[in-house]
């Protein structure tokens, strides 16, 4: 009976054990099915995911292209930048290591704390920069003591260096760390040490200078540590860019302008090469690369002389008497006066009930065009401007390159203002007054120009009537250096302005008389060396309005005024006078009179320019010899 009962139990057990076994088989089947799904059906997808996990692409920043001057002198180069780094997992006792390091190189307490702080946030194998820009002595001291400094290593990077510093700061611009708004999605820009062109040539041609990033495919683990390199593509270094500047001339110009708040532009009148583009005071572009302190930045932007501002292209000034050639040429072209026709200057001119004064009290007497330019007689130009009307003056100014941006290669170029009836109506909603024409006729009032525009105007006046445009980059055909808005390759040639050669000659003779005839406003600043003589025109731009009361009480001398209220001194000139090759435009902010302050600077610059011309004295092929 007992046996029966047990047999029944065994029967149930066996039956149920088999059921259970069947269920287990089902479960094993499910596991195998799952494995089949993951490892066969979905294998490709997961293989891709595993590769994504494992392979990381690192960017190798390309070396930035060099910038050189017209003679190949390097102006912006990449210097090896030695920095000392420490790796926590190799250093073991980091504070002690830093302590030892601090005895070898200058390492302030504050920096040590920063390193320790940064170290806490980063993984043990990530190198932390302790100090950058080590000198060669620092490097060798660290290397010699390497056995005592576990985890400390010297790394080499490239950093931008401008050997001429301030001299070319406004032209070259500078590079600095990429800011949030400049991110374009290019991963290169997101590299922590990457620098981008922020101003000048560095900014405009950043794309060419930057080059193409290389890549390094590395295998990484889940913590991001690099296990090994799988492949490497070195990328393309940035392109070299040659600019038209003559560095020595530029340095000479910067030094000659000195501490003034001033600008100077020197152009080749035939091809538009910018030989010098000076703006003072300057700033140290290398400081931007290293990173400015808030105090340094504050000093730069609060300086009333605007060191960051490139006055040569973005400073807008009333041209003063340097504008008189525009009016003279317009008058000749319009036929409102002949060169020999005279205008009587009693020292002032009445229009309605307003009296317009000549700069010379008592007047110049009878003036023809030659003498009007030579003596810069205001009344003569009031008269011909009145005959012309503002719109014909404006049209000529624009043909000579004023009033519009020229499309120069640098950022921040301003267009100036050439007023006309339509301009005033559109801008102020008021109609034009004839008195304003007179004021505009001597380059005052609404008229604003940049030094670069004045240089271009001068070039166009003296180069035989060619509408030359300035440019800064020397291009070779097919080099692909095209920047939207920038001027075309010079070898395509500039079009003629279509102005009578005779009229241009008359104006040019007036400019020669200013310098070379006794009584000319800049006679004292003439060049005496034979073959190097210059022509030019002075200008003085009034910064404040002189009231009648003040005029009666006696106009204050410029030197007695606060700097901010003094007149701007201007000068445009060219040389050699008989076969113009170079021209220049000078502005000295609040410098006083053009003849006293600006003309001597122009003289020095034009002498230096001619002396430095390797082709001096030889005729230029294809250019007609012009009558001086």
């Amino acid at each position: 009976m007992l046996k029966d009962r047990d047999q029944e139990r065994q029967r149930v057990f066996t039956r149920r054990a088999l059921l259970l076994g069947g269920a287990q088989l089902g479960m094993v089947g499910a596991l195998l099915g799952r494995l089949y799904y993951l490892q066969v059906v979905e294998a490709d997808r997961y293989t891709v995911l595993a590769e994504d996990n494992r392979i990381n692409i690192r960017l190798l920043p390309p070396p930035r292209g060099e910038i050189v001057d017209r003679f190949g002198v390097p102006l912006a180069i990449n210097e090896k930048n030695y920095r000392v780094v420490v790796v926590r997992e190799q250093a073991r006792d980091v504070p002690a290591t830093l302590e030892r390091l601090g005895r070898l190189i200058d390492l302030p307490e504050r920096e040590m704390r920063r390193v320790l702080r940064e170290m806490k946030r980063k993984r043990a194998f990530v190198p932390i920069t302790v100090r950058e820009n080590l000198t060669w002595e620092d490097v060798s001291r660290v290397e010699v003591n390497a056995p005592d400094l576990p985890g400390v290593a010297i790394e080499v990077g490239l950093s931008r260096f401008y050997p001429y510093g301030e001299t070319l700061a406004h032209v070259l611009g500078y590079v600095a760390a990429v800011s949030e708004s400049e991110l374009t999605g290019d991963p290169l820009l997101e590299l922590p040490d990457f620098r981008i062109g922020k101003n000048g040539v560095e900014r405009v041609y950043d794309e060419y200078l930057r080059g193409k990033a290389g890549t390094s495919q590395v295998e990484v683990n889940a913590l991001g540590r690099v296990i090994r390199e799988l492949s490497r593509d070195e990328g393309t270094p940035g392109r070299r860019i040659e600019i038209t500047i003559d560095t020595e001339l530029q340095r000479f110009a910067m030094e000659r302008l000195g501490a003034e708040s001033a600008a100077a532009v020197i152009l080749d009148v035939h091809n538009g090469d910018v030989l010098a583009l000076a703006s003072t005071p300057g700033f140290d572009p290398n400081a931007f690369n290293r990173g400015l302190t808030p105090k340094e930045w504050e000093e730069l932007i609060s300086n009333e002389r605007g060191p960051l501002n490139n006055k040569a292209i973005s400073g807008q000034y009333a041209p003063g008497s340097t504008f008189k050639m525009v009016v003279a040429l317009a008058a000749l072209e319009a036929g409102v006066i002949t060169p020999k026709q005279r205008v009587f200057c009693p020292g002032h001119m009445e229009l309605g009930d307003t009296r317009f004064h000549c700069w010379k009290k008592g007047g110049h007497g009878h003036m023809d065009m030659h003498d009007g330019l030579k003596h810069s007689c205001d009344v003569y130009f009031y008269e011909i401007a009145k005959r012309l009307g503002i719109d014909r003056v404006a049209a000529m100014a624009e043909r000579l390159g004023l009033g519009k941006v020229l499309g120069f290669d640098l950022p921040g170029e301003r267009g100036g203002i050439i007023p006309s009836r339509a301009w005033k109506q559109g801008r102020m909603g008021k109609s034009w007054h004839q008195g304003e024409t007179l004021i505009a006729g001597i380059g005052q009032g609404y008229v604003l120009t940049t030094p670069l525009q004045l240089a271009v105007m001068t070039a166009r006046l003296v180069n035989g009537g060619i509408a030359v445009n300035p440019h800064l980059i020397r291009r070779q055909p097919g080099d692909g250096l095209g920047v939207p808005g920038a001027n075309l390759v010079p070898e395509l040639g500039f079009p003629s302005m279509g102005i009578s050669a005779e009229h241009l000659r008359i104006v040019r003779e007036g400019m020669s008389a200013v310098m070379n005839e006794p009584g000319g406003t800049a006679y004292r600043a003439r060049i005496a060396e034979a073959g190097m003589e210059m022509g030019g025109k002075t200008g003085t731009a009034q910064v404040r309005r002189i009231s009648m009361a003040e005029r009666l009480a006696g106009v204050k001398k410029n030197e007695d005024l606060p700097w901010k209220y003094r007149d701007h001194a201007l000068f445009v000139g060219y040389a050699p006078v008989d076969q113009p090759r170079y021209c220049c435009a000078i502005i000295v902010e609040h410098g006083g009179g053009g003849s006293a302050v600006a003309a001597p600077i122009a003289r020095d610059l034009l002498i230096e320019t001619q002396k430095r011309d390797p082709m001096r004295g030889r005729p230029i092929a294809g250019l007609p010899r012009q009558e001086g």
Partner: protein
Amino acid sequence: MSFGAFSNREMTLGQKLLQLNWMLIILLAVVCSIGFAMLYSAANGNWEPWAVRQMVRFSGALVLMLVIAMVDVRFWMRWSYAIYLVALALLVVVEVAGDIGMGAQRWIDFGIIQIQPSEIMKVALILALARYFHGVGHEETGRPMMVLMPVLMIAAPALLVLKQPDLGTAGMLIMAGTALLFLAGVRLWKFLLVGGIGLACFPIAWGMLREYQRQRVLTFLNPENDPLGAGYHIMQSQIALGSGGLFGKGFLQGTQSHLQFLPEKQTDFIFTMLAEEFGMVGASGLIGLYVLIVIYGFAIALRARSQFARLLGLGLTVNFFLYFCINIAMVTGLMPVVGIPLPLISYGGTAMLTLMMSFGLLMGVYIHRDLRIGRGGLDED
């Protein structure tokens, strides 16, 4: 079934040794050796720190297994309740004074060794239930009151373990216990009833879970939802498995495991590493070996003459099956991650020890298969 000559006579030690199931021992050794190889790989081709220690443990556990196999099953039957009570007491102790390990109270530190009472309970529960049903006749298992006692015997440790909280082990206790009830002949409708009640109690159990456990369940349901948090392990495990493909990346070549994308590759996720390096072929091969061991367990249990031995044998086999089935289901994303190691392969002492002990018991069942045992645990006349 053979009605052998020495049905109820005491066997000599020599006779017992001859009866040892050597095929099973070889199978276990093969599986453990695969484990050593995987631990060697997990340490990037180093015997240290895991493979060597695991080998030492295996050697010790092997000896222990053989010793246990020699012990008469009647001894275990006699002490089964006592062992169960001691294990239960240890669970209470661990609840009160256990060290916190892995975010849950699981370990008791005895200075030299740390033990995990829940692992001991897995064996103790099977012993106690086998003992209980041995004494209950076929017709008596039909009575509801007769089922209440074993349900309590399962529920008490399961709740304690759940409170630790160790969802996986609690689940294993419940499943192994249920399997024993089923094998003992408890009516099927009762399982359905209990199952229904269990489902009804689900909200209560959900309330008892800790936040991280709930998170695991939710993450299991949708791992992509949280790819860098709790879903990371499951995602990376599946990537490792899938990228292994049919034949795998080769020994020591698993990128996911060696580049540390795979978490806990020497313990819970060791199957993933194996499947990554040896592909579906290798993974299925291991499952095949496990199935062979389970088949041995079934064969042994089915040949045993006493209800106790049968239930013990199959209970231990089911326990082993649950181990690998849950672990593999977990790493392949069929189940939430509940922290059950891969038996005989994952690095870990207590699991290795209790598993080898249970195989010792299983072999004891085989050696003593022809013993007939009375209802009270005494020899039958």
